[in-house]
C-alpha cells in the first residue's frame, strides 16, 4: 500500500509543508492528504490515477493509525453510494466490502481500496483548490477556511455529484 497526493497538491500546500514559509505547518504530508481525503469522500469526488503523484508514505503515520478503521468506513460508505450498490442487497454490500478491505494491510484496505482512497484524496484536493482558490499561507488560515467549508455545506447538503472520471 502507498499513499499518494494529487500531483498539484504539494505546490498548492507548499507554505504548509516541510520547508514552507508558514510559522505553523502540517506535521507531515499526511495531514494535507487527510484534509483532502475527507472532502473527496464526502463529495464522492475522485480523480483518475494519472493525476496522482509519487508515493509520499507507505503506511498511516502514527497520529492517524487509530482512525484507520473509521477512514476505511468512510471509503466503504462513499463507494456503496458511487457504485449504486443496493442498500438492502446483503450480498452486494458484503461483496463490495470484501473488495475494498483486507485484513493483513495496515490501512485495512485492499489494493483496490487503497487506490480508490488516493483517488478520493485527489478528488478532494481539486475541490479545495477550486473553493479555497489561493494556496493557504498559514495553517491557522487554512483551518478557518477548511472548517468554514464544512459548516457552510452542512447547512445545505451537497447536490448529487456529477459522474466522476474513472
Amino acid at each position: 500500500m502507498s499513499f499518494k497526493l494529487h500531483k498539484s497538491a504539494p505546490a498548492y500546500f507548499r507554505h504548509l509543508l516541510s520547508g514552507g514559509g508558514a510559522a505553523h505547518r502540517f506535521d507531515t504530508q499526511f495531514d494535507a492528504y487527510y484534509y483532502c481525503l475527507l472532502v473527496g469522500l464526502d463529495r464522492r469526488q475522485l480523480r483518475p490515477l494519472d493525476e496522482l503523484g509519487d508515493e509520499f508514505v507507505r503506511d498511516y503515520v502514527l497520529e492517524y493509525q487509530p482512525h484507520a478503521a473509521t477512514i476505511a468506513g468512510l471509503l466503504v460508505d462513499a463507494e456503496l453510494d458511487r457504485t449504486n450498490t443496493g442498500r438492502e442487497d446483503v450480498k452486494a454490500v458484503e461483496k463490495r466490502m470484501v473488495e475494498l478491505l483486507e485484513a493483513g494491510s495496515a490501512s485495512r484496505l485492499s489494493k483496490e481500496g487503497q487506490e480508490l482512497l488516493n483517488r478520493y484524496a485527489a478528488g478532494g484536493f481539486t475541490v479545495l483548490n477550486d473553493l479555497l482558490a489561493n494556496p493557504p499561507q498559514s495553517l491557522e488560515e487554512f483551518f478557518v477556511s477548511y472548517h468554514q467549508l464544512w459548516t457552510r455545506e452542512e447547512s445545505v447538503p451537497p447536490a448529487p455529484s456529477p459522474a466522476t472520471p474513472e
Partner: protein
Amino acid sequence: MDLRILGWTYKNIRGMRELEVTLGSPLPRWSLIQMPNGTGKTTTLTLMRMALAEEPPTPEQVRSFRPDETTKGGEFNLRLRVDGENVWLYLKFDYHTGSLSRFTSRTAQGGMEAGLRLKRPLQKMLTPTFTKLFVFDGELAKSIRDISKDEAAKAISTLYRLDSIERLERVAGEILRRDQTANVSTDKGLSNLQGRLRNALDQLETLKSRKKELERQRARLEKEMAALQVRRDERISSSANLKQRLEEVNAKRNDIAKLTFEATEKLAQLGRNPAAVSARLQDRLHDLSSRLQKLKLPRTTSVEFFRELALSAECICGRSIGPHEKETIERRANEFLGEDQVGVINAMKDALRHSEADTSAVRDLVDTLKSQLRARQEVDNEYDLIVMERHEQGDEELDQIQRDLTDRADKLRQAERQLRVLTASAKHEQDALECDEDNNIILCDRHVRERQAALSDATNTMRLQKQTEYVQEVLEQVVRVSSDQLRLRVQRATNEKLKTILPGEQLRVKEIGNSLLLHTDTLTSKESVSEGQSLAVAYAFLASLFEDAPYNLPFVVDSPAVSLDSKVRREVAELIPNLFGQAIFFVISSERDGFAESFYDRPDAKFITVQTDRNGKTTAQEGITAFRSFHSKDDESARVTS
C-alpha cells in the same frame, strides 16, 4: 561498530610541551577534564577532530599550534579503541613548511602506516562535518539549530547506513553505463547520443545544485529579516512616546501568537478523528453502522466453518455427508467470508459504532482562531502606524532598515519564485511558470530518461535500462522514506528528552527542516530562545540522533554547562550520563557547581585537572581531590561575570 577514546598526547603544541592525558583502564564512562580558560580546551577539540577526519589544514592552521618561533615541529597523538582493537592516530606538524603528516598504528597491523587508516566504513563516516556532531564546542551548541535538512539527512544517512543503499543505486547506474559502452561502436551517431545524455545529466546536476543554493539563500534571507525586524523595534523604542505603544503591541502579539498556537495544535489533534470534523461525516458513519447492523453483516458463519464441515463424516444435524453433499458444501462455502475478512469488517463496524466526537469543540476552536486572526490583523495595522509615526519623526537608520527589509523581502520572493520554477511538478503550474528542461528539475529528469532511452535503444540495452531505472527508483524510495521516518523519529525522541530537561518550557522541535525549527507556546519568536535552551536542544537532538545508530561513538564536549543556569545545569547533568556510552567533558572550575559535582558520587567517572605552573610547565593530575580544590582566577571571574 564501537569507537572509544583512550587518551591523547601533546608534544610542542601551543603551551603544552609534553603532556599525556590517559583516561585509564577500565575506561571510565564519564571523564571530566578541568582546564582553565586559555590552556587549550578548544585546541584539543580541534586536534581531535583533525585526527579523526581527513581534511588537510592550511599552513596557517598548522602554524597556529606552534608554541614559539624556534620550535620546528609538534605532534598530537589520539589513542582509540575500535571494536576492541587499539589504534593510535598521529598528527605530525612541520611548523617550518606549515604541513601536516598523518600516521596510523594499529595493534593488529603493527608499525606505522602513513595516512589515516581506520576501518573503511568508519573512516568514510568521519567527515569533518560529521565529526563536529560528537566532538563539539559551544559554537556548535549555538548553531545546532541551524543544522540544515541536508546536513541532518546526511548525518542520518551516514549513521544509519542509508548511504550503502545510495551506493547500490550508483552501482546499478555504473553497470548500465558499462554495458552501454561495451555495445557502442565507433559510430558517430552513438557518440552524439552519449554527448546529449551527458549534457542532460550535467544540466540536471546544475539544477539540483541551484535548488540547494536557493534553499540556503532563502534560509539566510529569513534570518536577516528577523534580525532587521528586531533592529527596527529597537529604533522605534528609542522614541520615548512610541516605546510604550510598541511594547503594548508586542505584548498583544505574544498573547495572540500563544492563543493561535494552542488553538491550531488542538484543532490539528481533534481533526484527526473524521467524526470530529463534521456532523455530516459523523452521520454517514452512523448510517453505515446501522445499515450493516440491519443487514446482519458480516455474517457470523465463515467459509472456514463450512470447509471443516465438508471434511466431517456427518453434519451437525446428524445426517451423514457423502461425496455429493461434500461437493455442494464446499462449493457454497465460497459464498461466505473468510475469518480474516469477517475480522476486518467487524473492526470497521466497531470503529463506526464508536465514532462519537464533539463537533462543537472543533467549532469553538475555529471561532477562537477567527477572532485571533482578526486581532492579529488589528495589531499589525497598529504596528504599521507606529512605524509610520516613527518614520515621520525622521530617523535615518530606521529608513535604512526599512529599505533593507524591503530589499530582503524582494529577494526572498525572487528566491521562492525561482524555487517554484525549479520544482513545479504539475503540468498547469509548469505551463504557468514557463518551465522547460533547462529550468525545471522534473522536466530535466524526464529529458535525461528520454536521452537514456535513446542511447539504450541504440545500444540494445533497453531492457537493462528499464530494470536499472526500476531498481534505482525503488532504492531511491527506500532511502527517501527511511530518511523521512528516521528524521521524524529523531525529532520525536528529541522532544521526549526536552520534556524532561525543560519541563516548564514546552519547547520542542517542530520540524527538522531547513533548520531545527523550534516551537514553544511561551515565546512568540522562536529566535528568542536562550543559549541555555539552545544547548538543551543540542544535547537532546544529538543524543536522539546517536541513540539507535549502529555506531557507538564517544561524545566530547567543551564547556557543557557554562551557559546554563544552575537549575538547568542539574537537569542536563542528570540527563547526559544516560545518553552516551562514553562522554568526555572539558570544564572550567565554575562548571563544578551544579554540573561536575553531580558526577562526584558516580563510580564510573574520572576526574583530571590540567594546569600550567609558574614555569610554564603543563601537567595533568588525576583524582577528585585535585579536581575539587583547583582554583582558577580566570574561571572564577568568568563565573562572576556570567
